């Protein structure tokens, strides 16, 4: 229990520091957030002054910060500038599920294919297939997600008309369409973005899993398992892989920020209505409360993800206590 509490406290501190970093980064970067707003529609100076006061931009930096931090701790991420004062919380809440769905699916694909591939390669270590797959993995990692998305869209969506090329739902679905039809429609729209998002990281996961598995296959207990006459399946998965699992969990904490970052591009390409597109729109309109809110939320997800990974690691290894 003490370990857990200390770890959670550590995560909270990290999160707060990250939040501080985001805040000061935004404030010290040159550029006026309100300038863009008045670019599109010229506003009288009183309106601008009023906005400045409303968004607390006149007070000294330190008081702005404490105000901000207070808001964070209370769960309030501020109000959007570009969207007329609408709360950032509600904007994010609107878009978060879509991103979680996309990110979650991508993570699932990433781990299932990546792990299977890595184990497959480790068992055939040194073979031609193994070598070529390693190169292929590196190539996948080298492919920009936005370009890959475009290429897949062109291939499967435009040329072959297999899958839809954007958005989350078919706008032409009748209003009384059954739940099943809606579900399959969602899946069809989810497929390309999820594949695009996960492809780059699948290669990298496979590489790590391969290395971890190669080490695990050398363990004495694997030899014992063979000696017992266990079926090969049990030797590979129950004995070798179970011991390769530990290092893989750390990956979970690593991939989360990458997937989140990648989602910005993928959501843009596929017009997927999630946090990524929200951040993108906010950047376009210099709506920095929203940008900050998104960045802070994402940091929270990363910190939480890393915490979960550590917890799982301790739970899965009986040699480490969970107290």
């Amino acid at each position, binding site marked *: 229990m003490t370990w857990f509490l200390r770890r959670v406290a550590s995560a909270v*501190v*990290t*999160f707060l*520091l*990250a939040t*501080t*970093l*985001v805040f000061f*980064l*935004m404030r010290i*970067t*040159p*550029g006026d*957030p309100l300038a863009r707003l008045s670019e599109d529609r010229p506003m009288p100076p009183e309106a601008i002054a009023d906005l400045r006061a409303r968004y607390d931009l006149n007070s000294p930096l330190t008081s702005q910060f404490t105000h901000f931090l207070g808001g964070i701790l209370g769960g309030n991420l501020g109000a959007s500038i570009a969207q007329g004062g609408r709360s950032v919380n509600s904007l994010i809440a609107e878009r978060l599920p879509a991103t979680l769905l996309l990110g979650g699916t991508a993570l699932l694909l990433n781990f299932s294919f990546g792990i299977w591939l890595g184990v497959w390669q480790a068992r055939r270590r040194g073979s031609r297939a193994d*070598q070529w797959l*390693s*190169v292929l993995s*590196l*190539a996948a*990692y*080298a*492919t*920009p*997600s*936005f*370009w890959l998305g*475009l*290429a897949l*869209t*062109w291939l499967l969506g*435009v*040329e072959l008309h297999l899958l839809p090329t954007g958005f989350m739902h078919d706008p032409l679905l009748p209003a009384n369409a059954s739940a099943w039809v809606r579900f399959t429609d969602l899946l069809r729209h989810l497929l390309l973005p999820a594949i695009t998002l996960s492809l780059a990281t699948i290669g990298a996961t496979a590489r790590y899993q391969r290395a971890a598995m190669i080490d695990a296959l050398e363990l004495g207990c694997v030899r014992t398992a063979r000696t017992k006459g266990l079926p090969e399946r049990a030797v590979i998965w129950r004995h070798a892989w179970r011991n390769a699992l530990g290092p893989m969990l750390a990956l979970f904490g690593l991939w989360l*920020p*990458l997937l*989140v*970052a990648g989602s*910005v*591009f993928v959501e*843009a390409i596929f017009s997927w209505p999630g946090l990524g597109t929200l*951040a*993108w729109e906010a*950047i376009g309109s*210099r709506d*920095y409360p929203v*940008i*900050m809110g*998104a*960045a802070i939320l*994402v*940091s929270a997800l*990363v*910190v939480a993800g*890393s915490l979960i990974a550590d917890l799982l690691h301790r739970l899965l290894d009986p040699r480490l206590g969970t107290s």
Partner: protein
Amino acid sequence: MNLLREAWQVVWRDRGGRAGALVLAALILIASIAPRFLPDWRVMPDLGRVSLQPPGPGHWLGTDRDNRDVLSRVVRGARVSLAVAAGAVALSVTVGALIGMLAGYAGGWVDSLLMRLVDSAMAVPRLFLLLIMVAIMERIPLPVLIVVLGATGWFGTSRLVRAEVQRLRTLDFVRAAEALGANRRRIALRHLLPNVAGPLAASTTLAVGDVILLEAGLSFLGLGVQPPTPSWGGMILEAQPYLATAPWTSLAPGIAVVLTVLSVNLVGEALHQGYTTSSA
């Protein structure tokens, strides 16, 4: 200099590393020399000319929507990407190595504080840090882009260097130097640094690949290299509406990115294999 030679041998021995190094060398060569021989990438649209020409004689990779030669833009883009990546990585490796060495050697509260700050910075995805920084500024001049990329890329390096320094600190030859009274700076430079160089080389190379991808991404979002300077990401952005009608306009820059980053990663992978198996 011995280090460079050793690194070169490590890369050459690995088949992937060899291929990557060759491709990379060819790319750098082409990027430096070829622009002289290629049509000007800045050709302005001539109302009489047809734009979006498919690849053919005269324009080996076709032309884009503004009737500019795609091949020469891709080659020019290579220059930009490589220069930005080199600059940014040079900055981040230097900062990361310094901080890592400081944390690893000093230990105590200095180490704890620094690593806590690094952990927090790593909690925010690098892309978001970049978006925050470049989105507020109106147009980003290239040097600023390089600095911003460099400033967000040193966290991982610092952890790596710190770990290595901590490991080396306990080894006898460092203790011997300390016992002989060498001052800390001398120890750091002459004893620690050469031994850290190996793993550092691997991660530096991989960092170059990451920066190229990031810069392409930012340019694709319109936030990186500003037009009319050609950049691979920017070219892909401009080619987006013509995906079906003129696929070469997006294929060419995309393949250029994949090829470059793949080569860099092959070299980095070779270095990683070479240096971790020997020190493990």
